[in-house]
């Protein structure tokens, strides 16, 4: 078995990305740059809709059902089979509501905030390899790119909090920033420990690096998913991610019983839908990142064509966990949250990084030594 850190730079003959395949399939690639652009747009449209269907349509319904199961209720069951048509009813209801804009709202910022929140998460999905060939782009800085665009959401939250001309929104916006800054660092630093293992920031490279077998237990191949390789980093990343997307026990920016709904207090109708959608997208993007860098991406039993199924299953598993925590855990106070972030998570994240670097470095040195001695 080769050392984890020694993986070569991913081969250039990797699986073609979705736009390329679409271009080939439809013949659009014959049309030069313009054709490629159209193919890219179509591909982005497909991926975008897939994600929106999952987060905007299935998400809220599933959330209701899951939370209900946790809290001993039944939830929607009247409209359509399993209450599935409630999705349609909800859509009509939310879109038909009056859009109320506070008198003193800071207009461009107030209007832009929901779009920033929702689109920043959408952008993140572009570099996620979802299996079955659904992969929009694969830049070499993939992981850094995801963190960067997901971080833009904080700007949207501040805008929403500030522009609403509401004190609760203001408090919520400030909390959101404080929280995002405090947890972005441990999140990225923990992500870096994976990069050390994989030796690349490229998403496809990280997935490929996890494809090997870590250990065989009773005839069962345990893949080298980084969740198994470094469970400590996995847990750290999960926790930081929950804080990042503002879920229990770290849902202080919204904290309905304290500051009404935080930065989204003054949003109604379509804007509310956008902010809400943005939140769901961020949860799912968080799930996608976790699946990609810790759970082997689309890897799973069965043919490679099933990749997207496994990938979605993994995202939903993370989603399920957020709902579970939400139902079972109390919320920490804002000062405690910041304290956990700066005094706990940050230290642990750096400790994890240093340790990972040491281990990988030692393994590499040992490997280099063996190669010198037994060429």
């Amino acid at each position, binding site marked *: 078995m080769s050392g984890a850190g020694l993986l070569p730079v991913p081969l250039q003959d990797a699986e073609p990305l979705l736009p390329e395949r679409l271009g080939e399939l439809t013949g659009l690639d014959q049309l030069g740059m313009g054709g490629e652009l159209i193919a890219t747009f179509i591909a982005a449209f497909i991926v975008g809709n897939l994600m929106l269907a999952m987060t905007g349509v299935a998400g809220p319904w599933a959330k209701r059902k899951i939370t209900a199961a*946790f809290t001993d209720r039944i939830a929607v069951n009247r409209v359509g089979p399993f209450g599935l048509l409630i999705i349609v009813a909800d859509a009509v209801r939310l879109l038909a509501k009056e859009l109320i804009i506070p008198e003193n709202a800071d207009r461009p910022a107030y209007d832009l905030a929901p779009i920033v929140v929702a689109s920043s998460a959408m952008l993140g999905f572009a570099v996620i390899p979802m299996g079955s060939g659904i992969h929009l782009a694969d830049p070499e800085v993939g992981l850094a790119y995801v963190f960067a665009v997901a971080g833009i959401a904080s700007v949207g939250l501040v805008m929403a909090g500030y522009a609403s001309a509401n004190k609760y929104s203001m408090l919520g916006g400030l909390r959101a920033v404080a929280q995002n800054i405090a947890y972005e660092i441990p999140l990225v630093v923990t992500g870096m420990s994976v990069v050390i293992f994989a030796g690349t920031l490229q998403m496809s490279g990280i997935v490929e690096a996890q494809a090997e077998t870590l250990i065989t237990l009773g005839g069962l191949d345990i893949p080298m998913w980084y969740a198994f390789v470094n469970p400590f980093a996995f847990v750290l990343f999960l926790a930081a991610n929950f804080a990042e997307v503002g879920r229990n*026990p770290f849902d*202080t920016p919204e904290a309905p*019983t304290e500051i009404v709904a935080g930065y989204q207090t003054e949003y109604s109708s379509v804007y509310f839908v956008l902010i809400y959608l943005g939140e769901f997208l961020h949860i799912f993007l968080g799930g996608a990142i976790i699946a990609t860098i810790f759970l082997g991406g689309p890897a799973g039993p069965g043919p490679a064509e099933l990749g997207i199924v496994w990938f979605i299953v993994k995202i939903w598993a993370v989603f399920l966990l957020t709902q579970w925590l939400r139902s079972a855990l*109390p919320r920490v106070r804002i000062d405690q949250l910041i304290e956990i972030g700066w005094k706990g998570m940050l230290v642990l994240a750096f400790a994890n990084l240093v340790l990972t670097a040491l281990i990988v470095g030692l393994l590499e040195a040992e490997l280099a030594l063996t190669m010198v001695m037994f060429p």
Partner: protein
Amino acid sequence: MSTGLDLPADASLEVTDDQLEALVGDRALARDDHKNAPGFVIRPDDVQDVLFDLRDQAGFDYLSCVTGQQYADRYESVYHLKKYDDPTQEVSIVVPTSTDDPVSQTAAPVYDAANWAERENFDLVGIDYEGHPDPRRILLPETWQGHPLSLDYNQEKPQVVTLAEHANPLQADQKDSETDTMFLNIGPHHPATHGVLHVKAVLDGETVVDVDPDIGYLHRCEEQMCQQGTYRHQIMPYPDRWDYVSAGLLNEWAYARAVEDLADIEVPEYAQVIRTMGAELCRIAAHMLALGTFALDVFGDFTAVFQYAFRDREVVQDILEDLTGQRLMFNYFRLGGVAWDLPEPREEFFAKTRDFLDDLPQKVSEYEDLIVTNEIFQVRCVDTGILEPEVAKSYGATGPTARGSGVDMDLRRDDPYGYYEHLDWDVITEDGMDNYSRVLVRMGEVEESAKIIEQCVDLLEDWPEDEREIQSNVPRTLKPPADTEVYRGVEAAKGELGIYIRSDGTDKPGRFKIRSPCFHNLSTLPEMTEGEYIPDLIASLGSLDIVLGEVDR
């Protein structure tokens, strides 16, 4: 000051009538004994003097209630004093003031509880308290004209107070003030105010600098409605509507006890056992709700704990429905007993109740797993919302709020009524003084209540069939002799729910005053929360377990 009196050193020891008389001395203009306590009439400018003496020298550390009322020739404030160590020791200080100039010295420097109580008397009755630290209206809007319970008030004339006429809490000067603080209206519509409570908070960042609960949004003139109903039948439905979250029977008992003492009505033992059982069922239901909503405040959503608490409360509600025919507004107690016997078939009712009691320990341990032992919950609740016992006493806090601060008072044990003294149970107290302790007290009380119910069921099962007397003989029209006064409290879910009644010789009360435990517990909120964070303010508010229907009445 030396009075030369031989007063008992231990506050719990009885102060005799003679000692009291000697202590008040020639400041007493006359005696005005009430059914429950000796009463002294004093001059309006002796109030603090007398109350300080009674508090410091005779140990009356609990200002239970301040009643204000108007007679044809005078206004009167009545200070009902008790002792936390022994609430059966009572004394009433009656302070008459003239109709033309109803000014009386404030008692606020002696008891913090007098602050809100006197504001209420000013608001509703129209007595001015000289030297009061905060002489504002409390229940009615600032712009209200007249005092509704005074005799010359025109009850027929409606007063519409529009929002624009309300005093604007955001005064103009706050906009360009130099301070770095932020004024925040929490409520009256806010997810965590447990009804329509309006908390005016001043924040420094996330830290609470100043808190001023603004109440009265749910004021429904309950006292006046009771004054317009007949003792025998028309008042009993009202108590259900004070603390309306399933504490109905406890409230009804407060009224029943006051009138039974006022008119010397005996209650058959069998009825007392049924009352005791019903009241404790109500207490469990009320504490379950308190637990659920407190979890809601700390967890931040309608999460598992809230739903579980409601699921378990539902079982109690079913039993209460079987017993009384109602789920919320029971109207089950009658003067001298209860409305009807246990539902037939009795075995089924007993079996159902026993099933509930058998399941309860497992449920309680579930809550212990989910809440009490949860580390995040502990981090949130331990050492937040501190209420020192001395502060709690001064504000007249009672019930789980006081017991969570280590104040060991429970009227069921200390001023026995019903069948409690024959049963085996404990009073739960915690010394933590924080939000966590108050939760623990409520959880403990649920278990104690279950013990009481079990013993009641045992008793009721074996009760001989021919001795099941559910009501004593009470005259169809009850007319207690004129100018009889009584103040009686019972241990409701939130604390001491007291009722003062003065009869005027008719079949309706001359004055009906409700001493609400939530009202006094809520007045401790600024003490608990100033200097803490907003989330702790919300949690502390939740831990007080107030019901606005009872605060505002």
